[in-house]
């Protein structure tokens, strides 16, 4: 009897309606685990680095892992495909309950190909998938869609869906589930919209079998205690949420202000986690089986919803010179409803503002215009007016108006809320992330700023390559299990190994886990190489290499990327142009 995994992945063609069960060998399961790893592996077998993300034959994969539905935070799932925004391989992670719901419905994952002739949604239950008419929901926002579908189905379901942004194939459209959880980055929502797939509903009570129930029980108790005792997971995230970082990052002089031109925002306080707690917070919210509860259920004067998170508070705040917290929050609510990635949306607006200021774009977007924020966001989702241009994302927008260097992006994905001049390791992390400018692939902020597990000198480049590679590999494992990254503040690698052992019954070791992580990361890299990405794309916008802040505690610093990059390739076992060497591939069985 298989434990952990359900042992069933369904591939469905929305055009023909045909379904088949995909066989995954024990070996493949062991080598890629699930979630991101297995998703990337299956994607690269089914499609290729030249598959058009918006074409009907592109596969959109929804994948859970062996730990989904078991330990705390295991409600998450991953969405994998080739990103229409960047052209890289992309996995997008979301919290909530949907992952656990897929397993409760009896499957590990779904592979969706083809395009439906009319809007449809999928209903997953009892190990099977049903295609249902979604015309009643097409055009509705994500909240309405979820409620409507749930009302229509006989038993309790969790719904992952797109809003108008996905329907309109905006390149950074998100997939939203369980009210306001987002698979935000990379435009997975656009792919879904392109397939006329409005939503997926999943539900059921199939239990996840555990190989070693008593070991699992002891381990769960230990994890409970570790997470509770840890001041980040046990206190800070609950009380203040992720926006507690606003004041911290600002105090370190690296809170990107006005398209990364400055590192200190004069009203960081007004958009901080402390301020949210004081003025907007109704209560914390949590995902499936999660005691951390970092989510913020909030209300402004006229509206309520979830958020904002740190990245959003920055993207619509300091990045645009806006300090009106209510306006930022309502823009966040709008992104949730419309199904848009807040980071790309905000970052694109900042790029647009600088393009306008320099005269490159003859439009009138100005810093600090809080009152217009909601309009810009909505117009983007509908490609209306100025939204038609904003919908391009910062890279294409900046290129179009002749100033490509003003887009703060790597490989087409916008960099989030940490200026890399304040942390050299983070700079390397951005440059070498497989899905573009992402802070989560290797969250170097943890050691370089937060002191977790120890403090590193943020301005030094020494040793950073090894750590970036380590964090990238560990994160790949956590994303494949699938669990929440916040656990990493409280738990070490060996606890993840132990979780996998007690649930799957397989004798994983720490070394094997790290190898799995490295394998997944290298496979993603190979995919990107074949899609045409090389060393020249492992770079940062010139602002970070050539310009310096004049004030704040990260002043007079530039990113020293080249030396770290050479180190990084050496650590990874890649050649000097960033291509994995044959012996590296052989070691990993690729």
């Amino acid at each position, binding site marked *: 009897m298989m434990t952990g995994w359900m042992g069933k992945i369904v591939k469905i063609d929305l055009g023909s309606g045909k379904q088949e069960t995909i066989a995954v060998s024990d070996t493949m399961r062991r080598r890629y685990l699930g979630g991101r790893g297995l998703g990337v592996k299956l994607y690269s077998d089914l499609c290729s680095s030249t598959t058009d993300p918006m074409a009907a034959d592109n596969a959109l994969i929804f994948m859970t892992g062996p730990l989904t539905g078991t330990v705390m935070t295991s409600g998450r799932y991953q969405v994998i495909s080739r990103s229409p925004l960047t052209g890289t391989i992309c996995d997008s992670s979301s919290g909530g309950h949907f992952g656990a719901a897929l397993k409760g419905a009896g499957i590990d994952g779904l592979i969706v190909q083809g395009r439906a002739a009319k809007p449809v949604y999928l209903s997953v239950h009892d190990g099977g998938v049903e295609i249902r008419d979604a015309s009643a929901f097409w055009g509705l926002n994500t909240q309405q869609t979820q409620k409507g579908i749930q009302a229509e189905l006989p038993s309790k379901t969790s719904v992952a869906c797109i809003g108008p942004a996905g329907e309109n194939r905006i390149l950074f459209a998100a997939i939203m589930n369980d009210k306001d959880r987002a698979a935000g980055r990379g435009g997975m929502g656009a792919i879904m919209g392109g397939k006329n797939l409005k939503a997926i509903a999943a539900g059921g009570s199939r239990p996840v079998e555990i190989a070693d129930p008593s070991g699992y029980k002891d381990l769960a108790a230990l994890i409970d205690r570790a997470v509770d005792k840890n001041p980040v997971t046990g206190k800070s995230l609950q009380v203040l949420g992720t926006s507690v970082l606003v004041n911290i990052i600002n105090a370190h002089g690296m809170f990107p202000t006005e398209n990364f031109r400055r590192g200190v925002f004069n009203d960081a306080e007004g958009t901080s986690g402390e301020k949210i707690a004081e003025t907007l917070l109704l209560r914390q919210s949590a995902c499936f089986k999660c005691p951390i509860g970092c989510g913020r259920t909030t209300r402004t004067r006229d509206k309520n919803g979830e958020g904002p998170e740190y990245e959003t508070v920055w993207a619509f705040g300091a990045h645009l010179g806006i300090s009106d917290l209510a306006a930022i929050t309502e823009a966040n609510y709008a992104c949730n409803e419309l199904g848009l990635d807040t980071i790309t949306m905000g970052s694109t607006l900042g790029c647009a503002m600088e393009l306008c200021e320099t005269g490159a774009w003859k439009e009138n977007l100005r810093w600090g215009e809080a009152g217009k924020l909601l309009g810009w966001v909505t117009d983007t989702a509908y490609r209306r007016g100025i939204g038609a241009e904003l919908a391009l994302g910062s890279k294409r927008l900046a290129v179009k108006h002749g100033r490509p260097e003003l887009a703060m992006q790597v490989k087409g994905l916008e960099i989030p809320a940490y200026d890399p001049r304040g942390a050299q390791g983070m700079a390397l992390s951005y440059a070498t992330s497989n899905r573009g400018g992402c802070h989560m692939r290797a969250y170097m902020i943890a050691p370089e700023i937060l002191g977790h597990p120890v403090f590193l000198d943020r301005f030094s480049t020494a040793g*950073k390559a090894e*750590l970036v590679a*380590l964090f990238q590999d560990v994160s790949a494992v956590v994303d494949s299990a699938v669990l929440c990254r916040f656990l990493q503040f409280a738990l070490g690698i060996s606890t993840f190994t132990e979780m996998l052992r007690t649930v799957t019954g397989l004798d994983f070791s720490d070394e094997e886990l790290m190898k799995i992580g490295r394998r997944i990361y290298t496979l993603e890299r190979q995919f990107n190489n074949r899609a045409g990405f090389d060393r020249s794309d492992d770079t940062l916008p010139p602002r970070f290499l050539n310009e310096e802040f004049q004030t704040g505690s990260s002043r007079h610093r530039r990113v020293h990327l080249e030396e770290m990059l050479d180190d990084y390739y050496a650590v990874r076992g890649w050649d000097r142009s960033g291509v994995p060497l044959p012996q590296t591939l052989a070691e990993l069985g690729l």
Partner: protein
Amino acid sequence: MIDLDRETLVKMIDHTELSTHSGEKKIANLCSEARSFGFYAVCINGAFTRYAGELLAGSSVRVCTVVGFPLGAGTGSAKSYEAGEAVGNGAAEIDMVINVGALRDKKLDFVRDDIRAVVEASRPALVKVILETCYLTDEEIVSGCHLAVEAGAKFVKTSTGFGAFGAFPAHVRLMRQTVGPEIGVKAAGGIRNFKDVWRLIQAGASRLGLSASVGVVEGLSLYKFAPTAWLEEEVPCHICPSRFANLDKQPKAVYAYYKKKCMACPHLEKYNKFYE
């Protein structure tokens, strides 16, 4: 390169809970963690010896009780009684505090007899002698080590964790050089993460006393895979006891001793900016 495996590391740890205000719940948690992780022993105050023993029944985790703790300034007979009672309650190891004042007064026979009394009363349990390095000069540390070994103790230990500062690699190195390979050297006090632990083990510690044991063991797995990054050369002052000398907390003579060492240190030139 970290060639330490998890099994070896856990067997070097005395998982410790010695706070004045800790109650049964804390001790129960301690024992439960020790059982799950397989630590060598739990290190606790006398009143909990029997209770901890009951909780750890059937496991390989030993009970280690502190005696004359934390001041070491009680009588030898009080310490012996305390030790004997603890062993009767199930303690397999006794961590006693040396009579620091007498050591500084150079009353060597007195100090040796004090330790010997506890060693006798503790048989067959093993005795560790806490020197409380934060109140001693190097010569006094060396002297304390000799006396402990002569008196039949099996370990020397750096600190109670309640003094001016805790374990430093420099002191551990000195103690190891003094006692040789056969006697144990336990580092305790102020150990927070794997980086601290690794430095102390490299300096010669064969046992560690800490409360952050779980984090350290988790840390091992993280450090193992990126050793050169995590374990970059530390600025010498950051791990030097002289840097942490504190007039508020140490006898004036000891404070002056450390400060003098600092001024004569060859690193002072290069790392001068850290000296304030």
